[in-house]
């Protein structure tokens, strides 16, 4: 390959100017003629039966056009175990805030007033809330028994072989267990017997929310021909279309899904959530309907990350070899299965070459909002456990945390917990990069103003997904190009597609634009999830551009009377070096699209199936400062190394890395959905669900590692998710460094940190304060 001209640069997003001027249209910005506004009546209890609903007063309210309940749902093949399919409560509400009825009215204010007029009689049922209680065989059920659990969505995020060990369960299962996996290798009992260092602990990462800034929003229009058009921010418009078809009993070809700009998704805008309900209201009224959730509704009713409780135990030799790992992971997925345990159970121990392994992952349902996918689903939660255990081995054995990891991490050919060999990965190289980071080289050298400081390290890996994708590269009449894809751009990937196409076509960036077309017109594209959009889709764009290039060269060779292999393309001109034979793309366009043209229009087509994963890996370090009187933790510096195979667009890669790390720092410090003893969410507002601000996030040192993948475009591998994996574990390890103590619960809020300090007697306290009895 000749030297790259576009790929590998740091280029601004092509959609930037629209966004900074406020002109990008998000779903909530849309107004259509005759559009109605929807509001939703929600169940105030975590678990209740609906005895009676009376919507007559609301229906009669001036300005109200329709009121719907579950009775209005068309017959269809809905699966009640799937969150998306639970459009409206049919009889049993299983989490607080579940949609019971919805109103479409001339204004949102009228719709809101009409909600007050809907009468519902509930019978409150006991709520199942504690995941560890809920897995017991005699636990009361979260809901009526479920049959098959649908994991189709999660398979889009992570492609995993579920080669679970064969272990017929002796005990009867709790009705609330929705999924269970078990990976075994070697003999852990023997492993622990032979270990010199054994460390164990119970780690608990609370429910965190994706907290995208754009609340869920949808506009739907069901027209007189029976065609349903949906405008909504989605990470997977084809998947959404197919699901909505199933949920509402409509044929695929009668639905056009137009993916609008996604104001942040992070996994939560993959599956339909409010779209079927909005569509139902449009079907009832024949008018366009808009539904936009308030932040409160969004925090209570969308699909956050599950809580992850890990009981883990690790064994190592005195010369620093990690040999044995045993863990039981309980994921509290709330009212609907999330599929999260699939990836995370396999990946918890995947970074290391353990001889003996026994990992059990259990997903349990409770009466809380149903969990879903959040950027590398489950990984921050399980990494919080294993990376603290590994760190503790380092502490107790006196090993350098990077050296020990370098010695133990998997490389190409080492086995993953599912028994398959790792493909080529750059985990070791990430550790090398971290070792050379400014943060690591100057650790413990910065001033601390008297407050304790510490540095912690953690690593992680994520296999990423695979899904076929296709793309078109069309030459326009003036010799420029349009790339058409069916995947939704959630990460600036259309800019990277543009770069790939420009590189392959031999034209400058400004001659190529990329557009995500709607499901009626776009070539098929998979989910923008599992970090695979560029890995799979980019390959298709590359193939489509190569196809277009071949067509261009074929035309040029005939026009210039030259062999195609003698032709060179540069800056949109085809020429034969050393001669004056040349033809511009503009000329070629004219020869392919005019009356009486001699050649067919240039339309490159690419459809690719990538069959091997290109896992992403990361190594991270944070430096923290602790206020020992209040328990407040400030992250003062952070560094992240990530293997991305090949950075197609360095600016975009750095953006992903900084953003992912920031989200996990939030999971480590402040972010948590809190439920009271009755199962009601206590903090469905951004005041109390605390995203970090510009004053709480430090500068992040980004170290791009490039160990090329064999199949990805230009060697690229997955990139979006790995950066979120390790931050909360790194904070905990930094706190261990600063205090000598372990912190077992995330987020490590001031109160939790202080409680740990007080239990250990190391909180800075004064003679008069409370005794320890209060703990």
């Amino acid at each position, binding site marked *: 390959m000749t030297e790259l001209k576009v790929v590998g640069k740091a280029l601004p997003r092509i959609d930037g100017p629209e966004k900074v001027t406020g002109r990008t249209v998000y779903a909530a910005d849309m107004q259509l003629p005759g559009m109605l506004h929807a509001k939703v009546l929600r169940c105030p209890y975590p678990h209740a039966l609906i005895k009676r609903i009376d919507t007559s007063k609301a229906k009669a309210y001036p300005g109200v056009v329709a009121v719907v309940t579950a009775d209005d749902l068309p017959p269809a093949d809905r699966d009640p175990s799937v969150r998306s399919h639970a459009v409206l409560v049919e009889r049993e509400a299983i989490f607080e805030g579940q949609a019971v009825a919805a109103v479409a009215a001339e204004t949102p*204010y009228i719709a*809101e*007033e009409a909600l007050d007029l809907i009468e519902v009689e509930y019978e409150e049922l006991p709520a199942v809330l504690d995941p560890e209680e809920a897995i017991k065989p005699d636990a009361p059920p979260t809901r009526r028994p479920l049959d098959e659990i649908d994991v189709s969505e999660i398979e889009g995020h992570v492609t995993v072989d579920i080669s679970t060990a064969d272990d017929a369960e002796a005990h009867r299962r709790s009705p609330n267990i929705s999924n269970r996996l078990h990976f075994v290798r070697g003999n852990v009992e023997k492993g622990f017997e032979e270990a010199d260092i054994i460390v164990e602990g119970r780690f608990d990462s609370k429910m965190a929310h994706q907290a995208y800034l754009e609340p869920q929003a949808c506009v739907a229009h069901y027209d007189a021909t029976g065609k349903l058009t949906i405008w909504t921010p989605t990470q997977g418009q084809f998947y959404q279309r197919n699901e909505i078809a199933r949920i509402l009993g409509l044929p695929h070809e009668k639905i056009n899904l137009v993916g609008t700009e996604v104001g942040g998704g992070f996994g939560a805008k993959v599956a339909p959530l409010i779209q079927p309900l909005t569509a139902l209201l449009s079907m009832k009224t024949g008018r366009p309907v808009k539904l936009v959730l*308030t932040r*409160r509704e969004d925090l209570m009713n969308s699909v956050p990350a599950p809580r992850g409780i890990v009981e883990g135990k690790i064994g190592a030799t005195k010369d620093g070899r990690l040999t044995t790992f045993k863990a039981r992971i309980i994921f509290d997925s709330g009212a609907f299965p999330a599929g999260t345990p699939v990836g995370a159970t396999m990946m918890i121990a995947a970074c290391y070459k353990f001889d003996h392994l026994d990992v059990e992952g259990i997903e349990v349902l409770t009466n809380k909002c149903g969990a879903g996918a959040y950027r590398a689903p489950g990984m921050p939660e399980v990494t919080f456990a294993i990376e603290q255990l590994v760190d503790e081995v380092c502490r107790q054995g006196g090993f350098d945390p990077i050296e020990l990891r370098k010695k133990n991490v998997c490389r190409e050919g080492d086995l993953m917990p599912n028994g398959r060999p790792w493909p080529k990965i750059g985990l070791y190289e990430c550790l090398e990069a971290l070792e050379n980071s400014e943060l690591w080289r100057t650790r413990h050298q910065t001033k601390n103003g008297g407050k304790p400081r510490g540095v912690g390290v953690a690593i992680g890996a994520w296999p990423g997904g695979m899904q076929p994708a296709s793309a078109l590269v069309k030459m326009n009449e003036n010799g420029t190009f349009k790339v058409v894809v069916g995947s939704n751009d959630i990460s600036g990937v259309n800019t990277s597609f543009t770069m790939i196409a420009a590189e392959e076509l031999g034209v400058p960036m400004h001659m190529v634009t990329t557009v995500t077309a709607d499901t009626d017109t776009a070539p098929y594209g998979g989910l923008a999830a599992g970090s695979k959009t560029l890995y799979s889709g980019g390959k298709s764009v590359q193939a489509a551009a190569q196809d277009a290039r071949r067509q261009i060269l074929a035309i040029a060779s005939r026009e210039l009377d030259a062999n195609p292999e003698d032709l060179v393309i540069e800056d949109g001109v085809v020429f034969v070096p050393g001669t004056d034979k040349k033809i511009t793309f503009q000329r070629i366009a004219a020869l392919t699209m005019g009356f009486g043209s001699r050649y067919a229009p240039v339309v490159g087509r690419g459809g690719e199936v990538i069959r091997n994963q290109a896992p992403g890996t990361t190594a991270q370090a944070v430096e923290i400062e602790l206020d020992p*009187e*209040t328990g*407040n933790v400030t992250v003062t510096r952070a560094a992240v190394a990530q293997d991305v195979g090949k950075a197609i667009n360095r600016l975009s890669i750095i953006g992903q890395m900084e953003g992912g790390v920031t989200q996990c720092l939030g999971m480590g*410090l*402040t972010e948590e959905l*809190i439920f009271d003893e009755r199962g009601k969410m*206590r*903090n469905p507002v*951004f*005041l*109390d669900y*605390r995203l*970090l*601000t*510009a*004053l*709480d996030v430090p500068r992040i040192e980004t170290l791009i590692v490039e160990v090329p993948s064999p199949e990805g475009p230009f060697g690229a591998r997955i990139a979006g998710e790995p950066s979120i994996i390790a931050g909360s574990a790194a904070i905990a390890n930094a706190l261990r460094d600063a205090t000598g103590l372990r912190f077992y619960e995330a987020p490590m*809020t*001031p*109160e939790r940190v*202080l*409680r740990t300090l*007080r239990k250990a007697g190391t909180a800075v*306290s*004064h*003679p*008069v*304060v*409370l005794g320890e009895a*209060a*703990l």
Partner: protein
Amino acid sequence: MRRFGYLAPKSVSEAVSVLAEHAAVAKVIAGGTDLVVQMKDGVRRPEVVIDITGIDELRLLEERDDGLHLGALVRMGEIETHPLIIEKYPILVDSAKLVGSKQVRNLATIAGNTCNASPGADTPPALIALDAQVHVLGPRGPRVVPIDRFFVGPGRTVLEPGELVTKFVLRKAAPNEGAYYERHTPRKELDIAVVGVGAWVRLNGETIEDARIGLAAVYPTPLRATEAEAALRGKPFGQAALDAAALAAVAQARPISDVRGSADFRRWLIDVLVRRAVTNAVARARGGGPRAGETH
């Protein structure tokens, strides 16, 4: 938001008259940063909203012989940037600067932060520390209420139906006096006090001649920690005085456990923050201490 009628009087007298007319069903709006959220949530459903922001006489901000006069409509954003306040009343900057965000502070007013009567509001402890007198006008004429007697319960004040706060008069800054406000929050911005402590002291040499302490988020109302003040009064500044004040403040508080912290954590924080606030107030009284608004 549920529907309501909207009135925008242009003078205090007009405001008092329309407020009196609709007293039972009206809410006064100033900055709206609390009220609008409450109305959106349906927690408050006034039939009439009386917008007083067009009343210029409520924007008063000047130092007179008897102290600093702060009109009801003075915004947090004005307090934190006003040269006179920065120089002479830095505790007001400390507290105002912590409210919400810059965008919120450009709306939120001193009267709103007070009349909303949130136990966790940041400016009431500072107003307590500076012995603010609340000037109220109502159908039966004007009256003055000391700030520590202004609050009745969560969201409740001594204001009678039809009464309006017009201004606050704060004790004039004097030599040998200093005041400071500090709170605890997990984030540095966009947050609300888990515990807040405002402290004012007057020194006579090494002795704390007088002290006032206000606490946020540890009691059903903003709390004047009279026992802690007594523990400081007449004592030499030092570890013993701080110990006694902290203990007294903890004893007088009645914190609850909520989503922002347990009662136990709050008691611990009172202890820590009373010490910090008093220490920094003393430092300011001695002519040093943190700059205005430097609280993290």
